[in-house]
C-alpha cells in the first residue's frame, strides 16, 4: 500500500474541485473495495478524498419515483420502506450481495464503481490490461470460471460484480453525476461499458465526475419480479450468473418485460431483442425458453466457463417463471422457488 494524502471536503463542489486538480486522487466512501485494492497494490492513489461528509445520504421522492443519494448505504437502501414496497427487486438484489457488515458500510455510488473480482486484476504478479494497460490478459486461457460469456474482448474478459447494478439496469435507473462541466444524467445501461480495447475504463464517467444520486423511475414492477443469483456457495460469493427479471402482465400476457443478467459481462447484460420478444406473448415456459435461447445465442465461452452459458439459459427461464408467478426468490431461504 502506498502513502497517500487525505482530504475531507464538505460539499460536492469542493469534492469535484479536489478530484479535478489531482489525477492520482480517488474518492472514498465505504472503502469496502478500494481499501482492499490499495492493500493489494492494485490502486495506488496519491490522495484520498473522503466524501462521507457530503450531504448525499438521503432517499427522496422525485417525479413519482425515488432519488437515492450516492452515499446511502446498501443496507439503508435495501431496508428502506419505500424501496421495499415500490422497488422490491432492488432491495432483493442488494440483499443477495456481500454480507451484512459490508452492506452497512458500502455506498450506492461505490457499489456501482466497484471493480471486477477477476483474480488476475487483483494479482500484480500477473498481466492484466485493466490494471496495467498493454500488459495482456492473464484470464484468457487461465483460470476463468467466473469470467464473462457476453461482450468480452481479446483484451479483457472480466465481469462487473455488482448485484445492485443488475437490478438497477432492469429498473432503468438513471445515474446523476456532477463534474467540472456541470451536472448530467447517465442511464444505467450506458453507465458501465464493455471492455473493448480499453478495459481500464469500467464506466462512462468523465474525468473529474462524481456520482451524486441514482434515480429510480416511477415503479412498475412491484409484483412480478425476482432476483435470482447462482453462485459457488450460498452466501458471500459473487454471482456465476444472476437474473433480474421484472414483468408487467395483462392476465397471462406479458405487457412489459425487463431482464438483466449479472456475473456474465463487463456490465449488467440486457438484450433488447429478447425483451421485445417477450412483449405481448403468453407468460409460459415456452416463451421464456425462446427469450433465453435468443440471449445465450450470442454467448461465447472461455476455456473453463462454458457451463455458464447453459446455466444462464436455465436461470433466465427460472427467473422469468418466478417473476410471472409473483414468487420472487427469497434471499434468506436459499431454496430456489
Amino acid at each position, binding site marked *: *500500500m*502506498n*502513502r497517500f494524502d487525505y482530504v475531507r471536503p464538505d460539499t460536492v463542489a469542493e469534492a469535484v474541485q479536489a478530484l479535478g486538480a489531482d489525477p492520482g486522487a480517488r474518492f472514498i466512501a465505504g472503502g469496502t473495495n478500494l481499501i482492499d485494492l490499495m*492493500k*493489494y*497494490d492494485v490502486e495506488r492513489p496519491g490522495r484520498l478524498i473522503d466524501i462521507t461528509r457530503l450531504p448525499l445520504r438521503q432517499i427522496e421522492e422525485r417525479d413519482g419515483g425515488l432519488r437515492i443519494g450516492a452515499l446511502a448505504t446498501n443496507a439503508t437502501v435495501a431496508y428502506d420502506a419505500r424501496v421495499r414496497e415500490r422497488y422490491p427487486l432492488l432491495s432483493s438484489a442488494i440483499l443477495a450481495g456481500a454480507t451484512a457488515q459490508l452492506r452497512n458500510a458500502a455506498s450506492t455510488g461505490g457499489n456501482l464503481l466497484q471493480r471486477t*473480482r477477476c*483474480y*488476475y486484476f*487483483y*494479482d*500484480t*504478479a*500477473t498481466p492484466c490490461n485493466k490494471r496495467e494497460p498493454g500488459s495482456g490478459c*492473464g484470464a484468457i*486461457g*487461465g*483460470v476463468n*470460471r*467466473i469470467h464473462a460469456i457476453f461482450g468480452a474482448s481479446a483484451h479483457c474478459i472480466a465481469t462487473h460484480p455488482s448485484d445492485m447494478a443488475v437490478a438497477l439496469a432492469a429498473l432503468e435507473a438513471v445515474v446523476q453525476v456532477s463534474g467540472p462541466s456541470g451536472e448530467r444524467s447517465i442511464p444505467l445501461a450506458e453507465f458501465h461499458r464493455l471492455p473493448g480495447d480499453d478495459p481500464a475504463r469500467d464506466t462512462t464517467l468523465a474525468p473529474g465526475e462524481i456520482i451524486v444520486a441514482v434515480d429510480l423511475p416511477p415503479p412498475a414492477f412491484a409484483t412480478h419480479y425476482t432476483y435470482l443469483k*447462482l453462485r*459457488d*456457495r*450460498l*452466501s*458471500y*460469493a*459473487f454471482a*456465476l450468473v444472476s437474473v433480474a427479471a421484472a414483468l408487467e402482465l395483462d392476465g397471462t400476457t406479458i405487457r412489459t418485460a425487463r431482464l438483466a443478467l449479472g456475473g456474465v459481462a463487463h456490465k449488467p447484460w440486457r438484450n433488447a431483442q429478447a425483451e421485445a420478444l417477450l412483449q405481448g406473448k403468453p407468460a409460459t415456459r415456452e416463451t421464456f425458453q425462446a427469450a433465453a435461447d435468443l440471449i445465450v445465442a450470442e454467448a461465447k465461452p472461455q476455456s473453463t466457463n*462454458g*457451463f455458464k*452459458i*447453459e*446455466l444462464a439459459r*436455465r*436461470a433466465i*427461464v*427460472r427467473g422469468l417463471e418466478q417473476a410471472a408467478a409473483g414468487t420472487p426468490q427469497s434471499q434468506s431461504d*436459499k*431454496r*430456489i*422457488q
Partner: protein
Amino acid sequence: MTVQFSPAAGHDRFVGRAISRVDGPAKVTGLAKYAGEFTALDLAYGVVVSSAIAKGRITGIDTAAAEAVPGVLKVLTHENRPATSTKPEDYQDAVAPPGAPFQALASDRIAFSGQPVALVVAEDFETARYAAALVRVTYATERPHTDITAQADAAYDPPMKRAGIKPPPEPWGDAAKALEAAEVRVGAEFRMADEHHNPMEPHASTVIVEKDGTYTVYDKVQGVSNTHDYITSAFGLKPEQVRVLNPYLGGGFGSGLRPQYQLFLAMLAARDLRRSVRVTLTRDQMWSFTYRSEAVQIVALGADRSGKLTALRHDAVQGTSQFEDYQEVVVNWSGVLYECDNVALTYSLTKLDTPTPGDMRAPGAVTGVYAIETAMDELAYATGQDPIALRLKNYTERDPTEDKPFGSKALRDCFRQGAERFGWARRDPAPRSMREGRELVGWGMATGIWESMMMQSSAHAVLGADGRLEVGNSTGDLGTGTYTILTQIAADTLGLPMEHVTTKLGDTRLAQAPVAGGSWTAASSGTAVMKACRAIAEQAFKLARGMENSVLANVDFERVVFTNGRIELAGDPGTGIALTEVLRATGTERLEATGDAGPDKDFAQNYEAYTHSAIFAEVKIDEELGQIRCTRIVSAIAAGKILNLKTARSQILGGIVMGIGSALHEESMLDHRIGRFMNHNLGEYHVPVNADIHDIAVIFVDEEDKANPLGVKGLGEIGIVGVAAAIGNAVFHATGQRIRHLPITLDKVIGAD
C-alpha cells in the same frame, strides 16, 4: 464405565460433562493474545516480498527505492542474507518429511510461486508494507509443472519414508486375478481439488530480543518445542538462549505443525538488527506454503453377487514439492476398513513446482476415505445392497493390514445409532426417487476412520498452599478446548473445583510435549496431567497420614478419594482433611510433580487403535440449476471416552463443516501456465458460510478403550473424514449422477462444461 480414568484418586465430576471452555472469556474479551499481537518497545516490522514466478531464478533485485524510504531499517534478500547453518538437516523440524527443507532467501533459485524473495523491515508496519511494494525483482522464468495429471506418469515410490507415516502394506492374495474373476466389479478414478488450511489467524512470528541477548519468540505454531528446536539448530543457538511461546492459536488444521518461513525471516532480521521483529503473513501469502495436495486415485472393487468383497485395489498418486517428499496415509484406510482376501494398495508421489504440501486435518484420510467410501456406495448399487448392509457384510473386527484386533471398534453402534437418528430406514434406495418441489432429495452415508495415537508427553503440576493448582505443558491449544479438558482432568484427579485449577500451555519453559496434531493431544497430554496430579495426590496423602493425630493415619491410599478440596476416606466423607490444611499443618509451601505419558507398548503390540464414524448426509438439489444444499448431517462417532461433551461436539461440528467445504466448496485453482494459485483470498477461495450449514447432529457412541488410562482416542480429525463421500453419495442418490471430482459444484451437477 468400567475404565476409570483415576480409580483411586478422585472421581468423575467434570470429566465427561458439557463444560464451557475455560479460555472463552479471555478470547471473547480480547485478552487472549496471539503470536502476531505480542510486542516490545523496540519492535520492528517485517513485510515479505513474494515471488511472482513459480520456477526459475532471480536475475536482479533492486532494493534501492525501498531502502530510501525513511523508517526502513533493512531489506534482506538472498544477496545480503546473514549466514545461518549450512546443513540442510538443521532445518528439518520434528514433522518434516524426507528432503531438504525450504530455506528463505537461501539463493536466487525460485521453487514455487509466492516464495519469499525479500523481507523489508521498518520502524512501523505501514512503512514496511509501502517499501515492500517498491522492491523490484526481475526473473529468468522457467516453465513450471503443477498439473498432477500431466505429471502422473513420472510418479515414483518415495525412497525415504516419512517418520510416523505407514507405507502401504504388502499386498495379500492376488487382487488383479480376483478382480478379473469377480462377479461384480466397480472401479473408477477419483479426483479432488488442492485445498489450503486457511485458519482465521494468519501465520505470524514475533521475535523479541531480550536485554541479555536471548530470544523470546511468539510463533503461530501447533507446538512450541518444534519451533524452539528448529531455531536453535538453524541459527546455531543454545537451547537456553531461546524461549518460544504460543498460548493461543486461531486455528491450525495442520498448517502450524511445521515452523513456517515467517518465523525464519523474523528470527533472521532480529538477530541481524539486534532488535525485536514481527512478521505477519498476508492472507494471500497463506497460499505460499503447505496445502492439501490433490491425489489422483483409482479404486477398483470386486465382489460376489451378495456384495462380499473379493478384490480391492486402491492406487494413489499425490503431488509433492521438488525438494521434499511429503507423504501421508492415503490408501491404507481401504485395507483397514474392510475384510477382503485379495488386496493391493499403492501410494506414489510426483514432483510439482509448488511449496511442499503438508498435513491438513485428517491428512490422507480425507483424500483416501473419500475414494473408498464412494466406491463402496457404487458397489452397494451394483449389488443391490443397502450401503450399511454392504459395510456390515465386509466388516472386520481385526485390522487386516496388521492382523491384530482393534483395541475397540464400536462402528456397528455408529451405523445403528446414526441410521436411527437420520431416519435411514425410510430411504428409497432408487436414485431420483425423492423430491420436494423443484428439488431432488438425496440421502447418502459413509464411514470415517482415523488413527488413535499417543505421543510421549510430560506435564507438570504445582499445588500451592492456597489450594490452587497449576498444571501445564508445552503443547498447543488450537482452539479445540485443550485448556479446558486438561483443567477438568486435573480438577477431578485432585478433587478441586475447576476455578482453582489453572492450565498453562504453549511455552517451552513448561514440561515437554509434542506438537498438537494427529488427534493425540487429549490422550497424551491428558494422561500426563492426570499422572502429575496423581503424584501430587500421593504426596499430599503421605503428608496427611503423617500429621499429628491424623484421621487418615491407618488408611491406605487406595481407600481415599480426593473431593471438595479434601482427602477423604471413601464412603465416609466425615473422615478427611482439607488439602490446604495438609500443606499448612506440615509447613509445605507447595507440592510439585511431573507426569510422563506415552504409548502403552503392551497395548500397541496386541492391538490396533482407530476411531470410527458413520456419517449420514441429506442434500437437496435444484434439478435444473444444480444448486446444492446440504440440509442435514448426522455423524455418529466412536472415539472412546469423551472428556467434554461441549468442546467435543464443537470439534466434530467444525470437522463436519470443513468436510462440507471439501465436498462442495473448497478449491485452490492453479493456473498451470504460471504455476500459481489464483483465487488466493477468502472471497474467492470458498469455505462454507452460515447459509451453507443446516442441521448437524453429533452422536458419541459408548466405546471403552484401554490404550491409555483415560480411555480417550482423540477427536481432532475424525469429524471430517468421510463427510465428502457421504455428501457425494447423497448427490448420486438425488440425481443418479456419480461425480467423482471434488468439489461438487453446480456445473458438475448440471453436466455442462
